[in-house]
């Protein structure tokens, strides 16, 4: 590892590199972008004025959370296309959590008040922490053909492993670039323009978006989540890399145990 005055880190150059990666990815990853666009169209359709079903007073909090979930989803795409892999997984984690919270509050409206009043008193906070255990909430998701709850859990755990929490895989994904050769100038070592971690990030971003759209569909009874989406994601991942079992690329529907 070399570090001279000339290749010291400069924020401007790192941000320039990230922008450059984004521009390049938007050209080279157009098939992935079309999948992401499908999620955006689906979300837009489900949330369209006049289509949402439910009592206004019960739908307010879930709609707020769903919009937040979408916010995290688009940020995950933006960050993922720049090659910032652990950060992309971190945002996917929040996307799933927000969508699952929204679904749970829609199913049990009494949770809405607990969510809103979380910061009011220490008792409220305890009550919030008791009721809003993400693992319990994911376990309580109904099984459906579109989205078996096992898939949501597997996807969530994958996001946690790879950057949704400071775990080994996330740290190693950064270190693979960092330790691969002499320290590069411009901060390019933080950005993954190709390779398995990026492919995994793209695949899970698409599946996270799908999970969000399926939960929205269930919540608001507007059947616009894209059909056959997981199969197409899987096909694209396989076509992008010869061995889909590596690095959990096969995770999600039709998955097999992860191997490295």
């Amino acid at each position, binding site marked *: 590892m070399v570090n001279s005055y000339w290749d*010291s880190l400069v924020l401007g150059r790192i941000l320039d590199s990230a922008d450059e990666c984004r521009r390049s990815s938007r050209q080279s990853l157009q098939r992935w972008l079309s999948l992401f666009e499908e999620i955006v169209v689906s979300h837009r359709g489900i949330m*369209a004025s006049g289509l949402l079903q439910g009592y206004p007073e019960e739908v307010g909090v879930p709609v707020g959370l769903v919009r937040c979930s979408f916010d995290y989803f688009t940020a995950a795409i933006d960050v993922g296309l720049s090659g910032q892999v652990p*950060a992309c997984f971190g945002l996917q984690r*929040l996307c799933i959590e927000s969508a699952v919270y929204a679904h749970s509050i829609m199913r049990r409206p009494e949770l809405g008040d607990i969510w809103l009043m979380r910061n009011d008193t220490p008792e409220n906070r305890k009550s919030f922490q008791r009721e809003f255990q993400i693992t319990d909430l994911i376990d309580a998701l109904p099984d459906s053909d579109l989205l078996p709850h096992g898939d949501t859990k597997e996807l969530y755990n994958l996001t946690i492993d790879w950057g949704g929490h*400071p775990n*080994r895989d996330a740290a190693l994904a950064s270190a693979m670039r960092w330790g691969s050769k002499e320290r590069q100038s411009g901060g390019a070592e933080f950005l993954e323009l190709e390779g398995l971690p990026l492919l995994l990030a793209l695949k899970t971003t698409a599946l996270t978006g799908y999970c969000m759209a399926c939960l929205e569909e269930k919540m608001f009874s507007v059947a616009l989540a894209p059909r056959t989406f997981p199969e197409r994601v899987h096909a694209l991942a396989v076509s992008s890399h010869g061995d889909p079992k590596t690095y959990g690329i096969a995770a999600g529907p039709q998955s097999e145990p992860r191997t490295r």
Partner: protein
Amino acid sequence: MIDEGSRLPTITQILDRAEGNRHVSRQSLSDWCSLFQEVVVSHDGIMTPGVVQGNLQNLTIPMLLVNCAFSYFIAAVDTCLSGQVSPCFALLRLCIESSVYAHEVLRRPELGPIWVMRSNSDADLRACRARFNITDFLNELPEAGLAPRAVVRSLYDRTISYGGHPNSGGVLSIGGVHETDEYVSVGIELFSEGLPLLHALKATAEVGHAMVCLEDLMFNVHLAPVGMPERIVTLNAAGLHNITAAGNKPAE
């Protein structure tokens, strides 16, 4: 019940807008960018090979985690400059967690193997969950000095409230519920400016400063920028003044 969903742009438009915002912010928020650059320079100095103090064998995992914290910090700056406020807070949360984990693993090297083996078996996963508790680790930070536990904890709680977790603070800070006799609409902005953006800029600088202070403590390389918290306060006050002058009311 209506929602703003039907007015949502396409993914291309969203990405274009993010890129445009970043471009403009790097010009218009150059004061904030110079503070972020200070954090980058400080981190780079502390992590210079040959300067870090300690038994290299025990440093591998803390180094990995510090590197991870830095990549979250960079991503937080990137999203903040594009105006994506909630995602910025989510990344700041991860930045603090990674730094605090690194600090604790350096202090108690026996935690390293537990962290490394987390995914090996269910028992390892349980062991990791039992030992790696961020609240406990925050309590282990020194009471005073460069990174006092109260300051880091308060920063961490703020990141959780405003986007590090799907809480009401985060949702309400970037949107609102508008109710009339006929309908209720929920509007959430994908891109923020004004007070929410200023809040995110301030938090990003503070988290970056906390990160390099923890690195300074961990590796015994005293390059954390001195006087930065005061400069953040000054810059924030100037930002608030500008927003107020432009017609927005400052937050209470």
